[in-house]
């Protein structure tokens, strides 16, 4: 529809959404400010270019979809808990994560920063100092309660840290222009391939090899394209990193991160083995958040080893892959949730 009509509709939908009790407080404030900014544009016809109104309508529609997704009760809360911790380690502890449940099989990051747009384009809107960085991530609704299958979210978070905040890949291009997309240098391909390598490495820091195991499952035979390196190339970079071997791509990003005074890429997860607990249909009890991250790789191996080897860990009278899948995901989800609950309880009961 026309931008001003859409803006009005989006404002109405956001007001309705803001009555939801599912939001954290700052998302309520964020939504209120988006609505106020829209109202400001609607109350001041002719002040902003038609192109800006159109962009704003597009941005607002997107924000509304993601915020609506975050109130759907289908958010993968336990994975988001881990993603928030990961952001804190990258000096982005103040950022909020909103998830949009998609119908397809693809995870994605919405690269636009709505608040950045408002600050730059809706210049006369007075936000009274409010600012919130929001990571908007798309999750297939099939995987809402499947944390093991949500490991690609760490890759998407890597994109957010890179494209959305720090321009790490852009910085790396200033250090070395032709490294990954040979032969036949193409600046755009080089840039796109590096984005993927960085996000892969970022994910591997937290969820280990499961990050590329997921990639192999989704696109095992994928050859290099304009936008993506081949899966073989991507796996090789991650495996070198996890093994502690030197690799020019890893070294390049470490140099870029150093220049930006950001944390280096390093393994965060602690290796654990969920097998003894999961074989007894019990939750795993991580001792620290690093072990929570370690669970993803272990649970991934557990699940697919059980399927590939036709294991029947719980001596089910009728063994089905579907039961192995659902119980492994449920035990993983509950193990993470229990860790978060214990952490919250300990924080609330310690100190004065």
């Amino acid at each position: 529809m026309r931008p001003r009509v859409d803006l009005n509709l989006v404002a109405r939908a956001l007001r309705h959404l803001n009555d939801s009790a599912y939001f954290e407080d700052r998302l309520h404030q964020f939504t209120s400010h988006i609505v106020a900014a829209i109202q400001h544009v609607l109350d001041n016809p002719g002040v902003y270019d038609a192109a800006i109104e159109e962009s704003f309508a597009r941005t607002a529609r997107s924000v509304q979809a993601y915020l609506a997704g975050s109130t759907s009760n289908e958010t993968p809360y336990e994975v988001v808990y881990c993603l928030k911790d990961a952001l804190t380690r990258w000096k982005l502890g103040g950022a909020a994560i909103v998830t949009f449940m998609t119908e397809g099989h693809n995870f994605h990051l919405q690269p636009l920063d709505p608040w950045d747009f408002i600050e730059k384009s809706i210049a006369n809107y007075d936000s009274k100092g409010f600012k919130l960085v929001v990571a908007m991530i798309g999750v297939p609704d099939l995987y809402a309660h499947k944390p093991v299958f949500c490991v690609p979210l760490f890759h998407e978070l890597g994109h957010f840290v890179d494209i959305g905040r720090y321009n790490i890949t852009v910085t790396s291009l200033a250090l070395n222009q032709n490294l990954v997309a040979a032969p036949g240098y193409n600046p755009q391909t080089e840039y796109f391939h590096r984005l993927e390598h960085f996000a892969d490495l970022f994910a591997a820091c937290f969820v280990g090899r499961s990050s590329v195991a997921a990639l192999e499952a989704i696109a095992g035979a994928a050859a290099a394209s304009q936008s993506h390196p081949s899966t073989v190339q991507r796996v090789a970079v991650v495996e070198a990193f996890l093994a502690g071997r030197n690799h020019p791509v890893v070294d390049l990003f470490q140099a870029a991160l150093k220049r930006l005074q950001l944390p280096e890429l390093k393994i965060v997860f602690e290796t654990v083995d969920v097998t003894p607990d999961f074989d007894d249909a019990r939750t795993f009890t991580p001792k620290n958040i690093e072990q929570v991250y370690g669970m993803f790789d272990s649970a991934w191996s557990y699940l697919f080893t059980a399927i590939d080897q036709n294991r029947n860990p719980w001596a089910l009278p009728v063994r089905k892959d579907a039961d192995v899948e659902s119980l492994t995901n449920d035990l993983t989800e509950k193990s993470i949730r229990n860790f978060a609950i214990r952490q919250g309880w300990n924080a609330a009961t310690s100190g004065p």
Partner: protein
Amino acid sequence: MPLLQAHEIKRRLALTDQDRLFLDPLLDVGQIGEVSIDLRVGPDFLVSVLTRKPAIDVSPPDRRDIASYFRMTRREVGDRFVLYPGQIVLAASLEYVALPRSLYADIITRSSYSRLGVHLNTMIQPGFRGCIPLELVNHGNNPIEIVVGSRVVQMRLFDLPVSSAYQSGTTNRKYLGNVRPAVSRAQDDKDLAVLDRIRRTNP
């Protein structure tokens, strides 16, 4: 069938072998009473809703999925959930419980909540794995705010003279390893088909 007392409950919780009683998270050792363990309400709720169908039909063949009579909602620990008079709400314990094959459990409402009109009585089979299902009904005439994470029920444990296998028989247990509330699977009861055949052949 001796009822387990506090010292035995603690001893079982500390074991690592097949007689181990597993409960995660046990946030406060004070949950262990003289002859029971208090359990907390978890964050997920399946709330019953009215539909255009006049009744929940569990019999074949023209049945509608029981899940369609419930809607899932989620709260965080410490949030409130309002339990309305006469409404059935399916919840699950915050704790994931694994019973050894030699222990049977029953779940009853703590007296503080019984006095508010919330009554519940569930039996848990030896060898059970999962969050304990809590079928909450408010029998009073005032809505009640339940705090997620609060101790609403208690679990009594009984030692069996002979161990019992949870996974026995030819079909899988319906609720193994549930970590969130699950709707009734009464529709899966195989004898419903037999009963339906009897009904059809009756003159």
